[in-house]
Structure formats: C-alpha cells, structure tokens
C-alpha cells in the first residue's frame, strides 16, 4: 500500500487524505493478493482532492513512478462498486521436479472433477472444512512442459474467497506438485461479465 501511495505522490498526483488524528491516504485494493501471486487485473480504488484533467496521462505518469513491473492500465470513474466482483480467472504453473505423465494429468483432472473438493481452511473462527467445488467454475489441467503443468480456473473472488493454494492442498500427496505459482488473469461479476 505504501508503495502505491508513494508512487502517486512521486508522480505528482497526491491522494486525498482522511481527516482524523492520524491522516492516511484514501486508497484501497479491491482484492488484496496473498504473497507470491502475480496479476494482470487488479482494481484499485482511490480518492484525490483534484481530478486529473487527463486520465491517460495520469495512468502513464503513475506507472513511471511505480517499481518496474507494476503497470496502471487505466484510470476511470467507478460506476459499479467493487463488491460486485464475484469471479476471478487464474492460471497456475505447477512444478513436478520428477517430471509429468499422462497419468498425472488424468489424476489431477479427476481430483477436480469430483463432486466435492474438501480442504481445511483457516478462518477467523479457526480451521474449518471447506468445500471448494461450489465456488469453482471451469477447471482444467494440461501439460505445460516436461516438469510443469498448467492449471486454469475460475474461482470465487469474494464471499467466500478461494485462495488458489487451497486447490493445491486438495491434491492428494502422491500427485501434489513440488511448487506452484499463480497468476490472476481477469475479474468478473456474478454473470461472468468482465468487471470494470
């Protein structure tokens, strides 16, 4: 958050501050990511004292002030609240250091085709059994390279949030990857329309 806030400041587009004992910039990320996840589709809500006259220029300027790799694609005035985000398309690369096989791919697909995909999920009330299946649309697994498998899925982004690592947790030990990394592709509303 500090990185984002300072980048606006550096780019010459200072954010609006809350009015209180300890003023802080009004800036929030719609779907905060866990550590290690990358993304093409983050939505950031923020307020400014003065509206920039040229939103495209503002997007370019803030991008230039951001650490390499972070890009502001578009700045626009919101019409829909971010609570309307429902689905999230993700892509995962799963590493299997001992190599992959047709059998592995078939087994992985079987795991996700079951009627329930139950894993223990940490919640505020402690660990609880959680069924991912109802909060999952489309899930496909296919070979990516000799040691990597590509997984694509559409998962519930909020209410409840499905962390893609839960899907890895659901894989039984013998087929569980040695390492996995996830990338967010797109956000959608309830009806699978792209959210903006």
């Amino acid at each position: 958050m500090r990185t984002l806030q300072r980048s606006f400041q550096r780019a010459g587009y200072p954010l609006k501050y809350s009015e209180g004992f300890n003023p802080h910039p009004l800036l929030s990320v719609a779907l905060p990511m866990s550590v290690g996840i990358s993304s093409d589709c983050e939505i950031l809500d923020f307020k400014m004292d003065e509206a920039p006259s040229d939103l495209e220029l503002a997007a370019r300027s803030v991008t230039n002030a951001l650490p390499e790799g972070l890009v502001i694609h578009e700045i626009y005035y919101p019409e829909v609240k971010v609570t309307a985000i429902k689905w999230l398309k993700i892509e995962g690369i799963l590493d299997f250091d001992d190599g992959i096989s047709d059998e592995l791919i078939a087994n992985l697909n079987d795991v996700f085709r079951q009627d329930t995909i139950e894993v223990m999920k940490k919640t505020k009330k402690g660990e609880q059994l959680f069924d991912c299946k109802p909060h999952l649309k489309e899930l496909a697994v296919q070979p990516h390279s000799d040691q990597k498998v590509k997984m694509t899925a559409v998962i519930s982004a909020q209410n409840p949030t499905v962390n893609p690592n839960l899907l890895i947790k659901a894989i039984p030990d013998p087929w569980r990857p040695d390492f996995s990394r996830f990338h967010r592709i797109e956000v959608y509303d309830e009806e699978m329309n792209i959210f903006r």
Partner: protein
Amino acid sequence: MDSRIERILMQVEKPARYTGGEVNQIIKNKDNIDLRVAFCFPDTYEIGMSNLGMSILYHTMNSLDYVWCERVFAPWGDMAKAMTDAQIPLYALESGDPISDFDVLAFSIGYEMAYTTVLDMLSMARVPLRSSERKDLTPLVIAGGSACVNAEPIADFIDLAIIGEGEEVNNELLALLKQAKQERWSKERFLRTASDIHGIYVPSLYVPVYGKDGLLDHIEVKDGAVYPVKKRIVQDLDQVDFPVEPVIPTTEIVQDRVSLELFRGCVRGCRFCQAGYIYRPIRMKKSDRLIQQGKELLENTGYQDCTLLSLSTSDYRELMPLLNGLLDYCEPRSIGLSLPSLRADNFSMDIMDRIQRVRKSGLTFAVEGGSQRLRDAINKNVTEEDLLNTCKIAFSGGWNTVKLYYMLGLPTETDEDILGIAQMANAVLHCWRENAKNKNRGVKITISTSCFIPKPFSPFQWEQQITMNEYRRRVSLLKNAITAKNVTYKWHDPETSFIEAVLSRGDRRLADVLEYVWKHGGRLEAWEDYFSYELWMEAFSHFGIDPSFYANREREADEILPWDVIDVGVLKKHLWHERELCYQSTLSPDCRKQCSACGAARLLKKGCVCDS
C-alpha cells in the same frame, strides 16, 4: 530469479527483504564494470535500509562508472536456514549474483553486537573468514562505520578498515584496487599501498604485543606503516555528494521516511558519549541546501515523513530558517516533520508549535543521570528546571506522553542519584497535574534505564562497567522507589550491555571468541530473539578469557589501549582531562562558549574552521 530462491521465498517471513527490485536501485551492465562491490550490512534489511550512511555510500561508490555497488543484508533466521538447506550462497539484491565472486565485500558496522553477523555473512558468502586465509587480492573484505574506531576484535577477519567518513576515501580505495587488479598486484602490496591513504587502517601492519600481565605492552608497526592512523573526514558537507534519489523500499522499514542530516559532530561533549567525540570536528550543512534537498527527496520518494538527523538538533545554528522552509513545503502536503535529539534545555515553545502543526508525537528526553551532581559529572548539561519547563510547555500544549531515558552505572553514581530518578518522575507527574489542558486523557510517563557501557574515545574509556549484579541491585532500588501508577519503569537486561562492553573495548584476542560464538549459531546477536548470553560465556571459558578483564576493569592512565593505533582527532590527554573533571563534578563549557582545544580541529584543512 533463481527458481530455488523463488521457492524458498514462499516459506519465509517478509520475502520483500530478499527480492531487490525497488525503485531507484542501481542496475549496471556487469560487462562494463571493473569492480563489483557487495555493500554488506550485518543486520536485517529493515535496519540496513534505514541507515543513512549506507544510503549515502551506496550512491558515492556507484558514482564511479567502473564500480557496481550492490546491497546485501543479513537474512533473518528462517531465510538463512532455507538458504543453507537449499545451498544458496549469500547474493546481492540488485543482480541476484553470489557475492563470493565480487571484488570487495564492504561491511558497515555501527555496533559491536553485529560482529558475529559479519562472520556469518562471510560464511554464507562462502568466503574464508580470516584475512590470512584469503591469499588472493580479491575478494577484499573491508569494514567501516562507528564500531571500527576500535576494530581490534574483528581485525583478524577484515583486510582493512575505513576510519571515519567514507564518502571520499572509499572511492580512493576503489581507484587503487582497480589499478592493483589490472596490474595484478599481490594482496600484500595492495594493502601496504592502501595503508598510505588517509583514513585506511590495515590491521595486519600493526601487531599487538602483550605483556605477562595480559596488558598490551606495545604495538609493533610493520613495514614503516603510518602510526597512528588518522580518521578521515569530509571537509565540507555542502560540497559532498548526497543522494536525493535513494532506494525506496517496497516493504516497511524502521526509518520509513526522508532523513536529512543537519550536521556532524556535537558541541556538547557529554562524557559518556562516544559519538559526541568521534564525529568531531563540527561541520554543518547550510539550511538553504537542506531545504532544497528535503524538497527533492520528498518529491522523489513520495514519503510522508521527514526526520532531521544530528546528535543534537537544537544546536543546529540555522534551525529556525530550516524549519520554516521545510514546513512551508510539508504542511500543505500533510507531510510530518520529526526532530529527534532535541535538548530539553533550549527546547522552545516556538519549535514545538511548529512541529505539532502536522502530527503530534510523544516527547522523549535523554536525561541520563538522576541528580544535578551526576549530570554535572557526566557533563550532561540539563537541569531539572529546564526539563520541567519544557514539560510544562508540552503539557499545556496538549502532549501527554513523556519518556525519560537514564543510564545506571555511570561513574560516581550513588544510590541517592538513583532515587533522584524517581523524584524527577514525580516532579514531571506533578507538572502535568498543574498544567495539563485535558486531564481526562491521562498522562503516561515512562522511565527507561540501561546499563552504562564505557566506550573507546570517550572520557570514560578508562572506566569499569558495573557488574551485572550491581546493575540489578540498582534497578530494584529504583523500581521500589517508583510508586506513582502513571509512571512506568522499563529496564534493559544487563547481559547484552556486558557483552557489548567486552567487545567495544576488546582486542584481537577476542577473535577466537567471536568465531566460537558464530560457529555455535550466534548471529544477529543485537536481537533478543537470537542473543545468547550463555553461548558467549561458554566461548570465553573455552579460550580461558575473563570477560570482566575487558568490561569491569578500570584502566590506568598510562595503559596502552588497543585502539591507541587510531587517531580520531580528539586527543587522549583531552579525554583524560575531561575524566578528571567528572570526578570533580565540574561541567565543561560547550564548544560554542569556549573551545576546549580537544584536538579534532587538527583534522580540518587549512582555512576550515570547526563549527563555522
């Protein structure tokens, strides 16, 4: 990124410490580089990235086009273990390259408790620990920073130390190394030549010889090397390079703000304070230049806070113009300004009025001694009246948090002095009752004590540290004397202070102890999470070394001290004179009232005047 690192980053706390990639990091093409420098900070990323010296020297070294200086910090325990398990050597943040192939491993050492971390980083880099085991010219292991005014405990591990300020001498050294590398000099030839550069101490050229009593008999100087080695300073702070585009961390660090250095040195001369002596002579930066740099830094970083750094900010000659200039910029932008190191004696309503306009922080005063007599003895020129006056202004201005810092075990301290601390806390509480604007909010007064550590190059360098048991007795005396419920008493444990006292006045015989502690898992010893008193004691006893010889022994006036090989500017006889004044409870006037001819001005070039 190395895929092995990518994997372990998922398992460790705060992975952003280990990735690099921050805004303003310096990336160079390594094919066009003659020297690669690993700038190693023997503590965590959050501490190292908060260090202004590191930020300055990173930029000055990188200003040389043939040098690429990269940052390296000590990984926290989880990462260190994960790296060892995955057989990943210590790497530099900018390139991700292992630092064992670098030409220079440069350590910035600000405090003695970091010594074992230096060894650990060398080991993680897969570089032999001792200078004598590294036969080739590179990697050259060098150290600098305030702990290096007595580099003796780590002398066997480093090839050379920078004594004093590094802005200029570092680059002179690198120029020489470039030549030496091109002309294939031996390491010996390089070190001997480097020792002629003002501010460079090559320990292998000075051999301590101990007498039967265990005291230092003499220091044997080899190969006609300079003796003593004179501290290097920057003559004009306004002329030296100062980075206005510092690396901006992506993760939260300790000092997450713009730092502006107002001046170096201190006019006060508190007798316990090493910094007050080793940073002399006094040189200040002009306020208009500071305002300019402050604005540029705030614009370039996007930080929302700015801190004014110095040993005694109230003594900065152009404080008012500086504050006015900065506040004109900061206030409309909600940028907070903080002034640590304000003195209670000349803390004015005006300053407080100005800084509270943006954000109100707590008040902290380093009172150090509990009675006027003791404060006179240590030359801490703060009176109870000054302190209470300041508190009065603060309380009526709406402040309601006051922290008072003291040391226990200062020379000449009596039980009466200690009880004086409790009395002062009561007086502050009374002052709040009389002056507070809004009593419903309550008041919080915190008393903190730590165990006094005698430091080299301070007038108390000959003093004994009180024993740990004596410290505990004094703590409980004070604890029982503090009765008011609004007053909290916090004390530091004496164990770390004891080890620090051993190391700060240590000699080369402690090298084995350091290696033993490191070998048995001692690293990041400045952190309570890792500090192990038992391990240190085990190491001392393993080598038959009595730690109290270093910590609790009073030195004679004529004793040769291990750090006599270094000339920091202030003369030994001046320090002794100050010590004698302590025992007479006599104050010395500050440098502005009367120059004490301490000797530091000798370091200035002709035409330069101390504190001008």
